[in-house]
């Protein structure tokens, strides 16, 4: 340890204790704001209902022995956990960058790097600073895995989790230090990765060679035979030796008594101490890499706080999605801007090729009608995937495609100073995600149609009469649904910017989790209410139309008035949002 470790520890203690105290105080004080208070109550209620209530109820009423694994199952789980640790340990060496990875916060860099503190003291500072996070992760992981019933299991599981997380942290740092040393000695990049990969392959090869050479190696024909083979693999030969250190680390979790736990703890702690000494004695010059890592961490934090994690990669020059003459309907300029922000995926050229591809697929499917088995398999996959993606786009699309007010909250100064009526700004800002989602959905509908045609041709093709009308009806309805769905998050962004900011990752805690729950429930409720008028109108129209054209073709006929209702609701929403935009205060917190 460094000769000036004690002052560092006292400084760290001061920093951590004051930071925790101030953070807790700030959290408590912000509960005076209704949005945090409501969020806090909902968050605590959720945690209680889902985790703590069960824990206390089971404690009071049951005498169940925790996870209650049979010794054989416990052996399997232990081996799987050890294998997962081994894979992580190996991947760290293979995928690590060429430089030491030890991130400090920007404040730590500016205060500690120039301070009269030795490198090892700095390192100890960083290792100790990770501990609150590791302890908290262990606690919550223990809570969420939530089946630890006895106090002993609470302790043994929690302690093992802490040990594993600490070890993973130390191992990743130690590996990055070792990798930096190798880099300094000329073994860098792909050469280093190939060497590691070769070593790993040799070890895996040795295990497989042993399996092949084993006299009792019977062919694996069923699940039982596979289990027997794995059991044999784990009990003899090189595999048990290779996995032994990893099993030592996870073993305390599987102990059933305190004495057994203490017995299992020795080797695990030894490995932990070994890792600690390996890291602090590495004497690697990590400062420069730490500066870079800190800068990246700061950028990532800022991106997370502004809700723009998707914009972490440096932007590239992107082509105009369409020509934008200086005269014309101004909201198209906002659509144009947001499509550029959305990326190269939304240029006319890309969509031309996508449509050509889909068109070819639909045409081939329509012409062959499932004549080839290969095409049938492709059709099956295309149908399933497109249906899944359509469903996801409806449920999650508005949360994923955020090129609207949500991504421009930092630019509200500019948007507010535009010489446009508020409704035009609102419309322009909402257009891009509607266009993007609709374009994707129409694309998936095309794939769905093609896939469905590829599966057709059988005499019992029950969906045949519904195929075209159904796709047409969905194509008519999707833009309106998207527009309506996108109104909701944008309304929140304009009416409750602070809530929206909290949604985008500014601050954490139970109260923010509660806020997210409130938002999700509100979102679902408003969506149902919003879709109801269109549903009623569509239903009525369908009932009338099916009397004339039959049930299938009544679908697109009914979809048209339903889409018009959605459009009217959207127009009313834009009108309302325009008021909100007019009253939006760029200085509000």
């Amino acid at each position, binding site marked *: 340890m460094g000769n000036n470790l004690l002052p560092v520890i006292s400084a760290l203690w001061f920093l951590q204790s004051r930071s925790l105290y101030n953070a807790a105080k700030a959290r408590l004080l912000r509960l005076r704001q209704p949005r945090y208070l409501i969020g806090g109550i909902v968050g605590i209620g959720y945690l209680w209902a889902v985790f703590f209530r069960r824990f206390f109820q089971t404690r009071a009423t049951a005498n169940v022995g925790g996870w209650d694994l049979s010794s054989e199952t416990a052996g399997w789980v232990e081996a799987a956990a050890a294998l997962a640790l081994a894979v992580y340990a190996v991947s760290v060496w293979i995928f690590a960058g060429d430089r030491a990875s030890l991130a400090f916060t920007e404040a730590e860099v500016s205060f500690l790097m120039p301070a009269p503190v030795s490198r090892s003291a700095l390192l100890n500072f960083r290792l100790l600073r990770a501990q609150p996070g590791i302890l908290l992760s262990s606690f919550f992981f223990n809570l969420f895995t939530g089946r630890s019933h006895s106090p002993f299991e609470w302790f043994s599981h929690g302690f093992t989790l802490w040990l594993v997380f600490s070890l993973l942290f130390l191992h990743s740092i130690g590996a990055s230090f070792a990798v930096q040393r190798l880099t300094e000695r000329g073994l860098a990049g792909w050469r280093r990765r190939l060497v590691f990969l070769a070593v790993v392959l040799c070890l895996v090869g040795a295990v497989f060679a042993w399996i092949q050479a084993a006299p009792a190696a019977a062919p694996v024909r069923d699940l039982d035979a596979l289990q027997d083979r794995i059991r044999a693999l784990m009990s003899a030969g090189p595999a048990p030796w290779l996995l032994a250190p990893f099993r030592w680390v996870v073993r305390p979790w599987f102990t059933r008594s305190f004495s057994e736990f203490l017995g299992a703890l020795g080797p695990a702690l030894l490995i932990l101490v070994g890792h600690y000494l390996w890291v602090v004695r590495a004497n690697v010059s990590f400062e420069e890499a730490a500066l870079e890592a800190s800068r990246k961490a700061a950028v990532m934090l800022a991106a997370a706080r502004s809700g723009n994690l998707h914009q972490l990669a440096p932007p590239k020059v992107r082509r*105009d999605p369409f020509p934008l003459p200086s005269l014309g309907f101004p909201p198209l300029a906002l659509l144009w801007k947001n499509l550029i922000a959305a990326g190269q995926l939304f240029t006319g050229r890309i969509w031309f090729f996508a449509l050509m591809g889909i068109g070819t697929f639909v045409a081939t499917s329509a012409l062959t009608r499932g004549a080839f088995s290969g095409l049938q398999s492709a059709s099956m996959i295309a149908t399933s995937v497109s249906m899944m993606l359509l469903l996801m786009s409806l449920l999650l699309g508005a949360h994923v495609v955020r090129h609207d007010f949500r991504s421009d909250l930092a630019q509200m100064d500019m948007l507010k100073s535009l*010489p446009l009526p508020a409704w035009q700004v609102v419309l322009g800002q909402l257009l891009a995600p509607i266009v993007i989602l609709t374009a994707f959905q129409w694309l998936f509908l095309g794939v769905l149609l093609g896939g469905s045609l590829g599966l057709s041709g059988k005499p019992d093709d029950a969906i045949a009469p519904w195929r075209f009308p159904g796709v047409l009806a969905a194509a008519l309805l999707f833009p309106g649904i998207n527009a309506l769905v996108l109104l909701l998050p944008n309304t929140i962004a304009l009416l409750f910017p602070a809530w929206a900011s909290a949604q985008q990752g500014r601050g954490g805690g139970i109260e923010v989790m509660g806020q997210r729950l409130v938002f999700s429930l509100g979102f679902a409720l408003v969506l149902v209410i919003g879709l109801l008028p269109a549903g009623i109108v569509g239903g009525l129209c369908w009932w009338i139309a099916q009397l004339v054209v039959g049930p299938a073709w009544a679908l697109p006929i009914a979809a048209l008035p339903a889409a018009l209702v959605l459009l009217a609701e959207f127009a009313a929403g834009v009108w309302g949002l325009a008021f909100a935009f007019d009253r939006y205060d760029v200085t509000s917190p």
Partner: protein
Amino acid sequence: MIEVEGLTKLYGDFAAVTALSFSVQPGELLGLVGPNGAGKTTTLRSLAGIIPATRGTIRIAGHDLATDPVGAKRELAFFSDEPRLFEYLTIRQHLDFTARLYQVPDAPARYARLLEELELTSKADQLPGDLSRGMKQKVQIACGLLHSPKVIFFDEPLTGLDPLAIRRMKDTIRRLATEGAAVVLSSHLLHLVEELCSRILILKNGTKVAHGTVDQIRSQFAADDAGADLEEVFIRIATGTGNPPPPPPPPSAPAPSSP
């Protein structure tokens, strides 16, 4: 060109700006100064229609900002202290975008000239991320001047600029005023304000404490020190050690009607 009467901006019970009245004529350059938290940025944002005034009237080139915000905004340009550009639009795309929003008829010719003047031509297809702060400031100016605004607001225009860029920015501001724009400039750099502005408005705690030429303000707050510069006057006002402002003139009697 800019007429402000009784501008008040409240945040709950807190008054960021209180009953502010002034006017700026074409070709005039008004310096808005005051200590931190005096309400300068709030005033500028209210004048630019970015935040709504709680009370009062703002007229920009004859358009009432409350009743005709679009007409008013079409005549103005607001340059914030930090150039906020879209990181994924190139400079040329920024200009295309602005031209459409402001419906600039001969945009390509205008922005070619602006790019040339601001020495941005070679950077036209670069993203803001590739530019220095001074360059970003220039892009902001190019976008703001594209529609030939009659009223221009600068909030701390020299922040973060190197000496050469400062010189060019000062020349630009001076030229805009000379060409007939009404310019309001907010800055902590008092020597800049003294050098550029024909009149100065000093705010303190959201209230106007002085308004006039440097000489008028000097005579009002540092009558005992004829050599006092604006900095000295400002410090006296900020610390409350200056001469007390004269009492407001009594309401003048209505002019006698001509026989």
